[in-house]
């Protein structure tokens, strides 16, 4: 069981390395976002979404500007 878990995590990390290369490829300025290993790197993208990205989409009316009275 431990071996299966280790293998799953290793695959997650290999997947993460590929993602980092893609995400960092357009970081052109010193202020640009940097991507690398985080506390979530051993999760697959699907596992990450299932665990942490659970907010439903909300919709709201378009902001119509500040009201000017008088």
């Amino acid at each position, binding site marked *: 069981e431990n071996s299966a878990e280790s293998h799953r995590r290793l695959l997650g990390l290999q997947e993460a390395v590929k*993602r980092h290369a893609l995400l960092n490829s*357009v970081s052109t300025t010193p202020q640009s976002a*940097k991507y690398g290993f*985080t506390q979530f790197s051993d999760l697959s993208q699907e596992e990450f979404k299932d*665990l*942490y*990205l659970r*907010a439903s989409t909300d919709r709201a009316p*378009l*902001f119509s500007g500040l009201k000017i009275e008088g």
Partner: protein
Amino acid sequence: LPAKFDWRDKAVVAPVQNQQACGSCWAFSVIGAMQSVHAIGGSQLEQLSVQQVLDCSFRNEGCNGGSISKALSWLKQTRVKLVPQSEYPYKAKTGICHFFSPSHAGVALMNFTAHDFSGQEVAMMGELVQRGPLAVVVDAVSWQDYLGGIIQHHCSSQYSNHAVLVVGYDTTGDIPYWIVQNSWGATWGNEGYVYIKIGGNICGIADYVAAVFL
């Protein structure tokens, strides 16, 4: 509008929290806005109970997910008083709703507004300055690997999946950006914060923007 504005400078933003393995971002976002607006109103900054919202906001699904709009609608309709975090601590698990007597001290929501500010992020800056920190939804798929810096790419709009709190902005540098508090702990990103470029609705940050009134 000031070129730079950060509600943390006014000591009305609570420290970064960690939702752990629970899909409770929506509750952290709503509570973050409420406790800041409470402090802006002159009260001492006090952490309110995320767990209370998680357990009791019945139209949401606790750790399985929820929405800012449903949580705020529930708070407005029921006028439930949110108690301090110390009285109803966070457990990162959905539990049974604890009720408190009407005389129990707490913070209730009076009203809220929610708008789509896409294409109008300057007006959204005004909303932040005028109303306090804003609860928003974003696409945070690429945030799994975010280490720091200003996000300008790899973030879609209209596919929101995560709720966070906008606490400030900075337009003094080459790239203007929003200062956003996340709920994944202080070791993630810029000490728990993420910076998102202003303009272009990056990550869908302007798609759904809620301000609260107490």
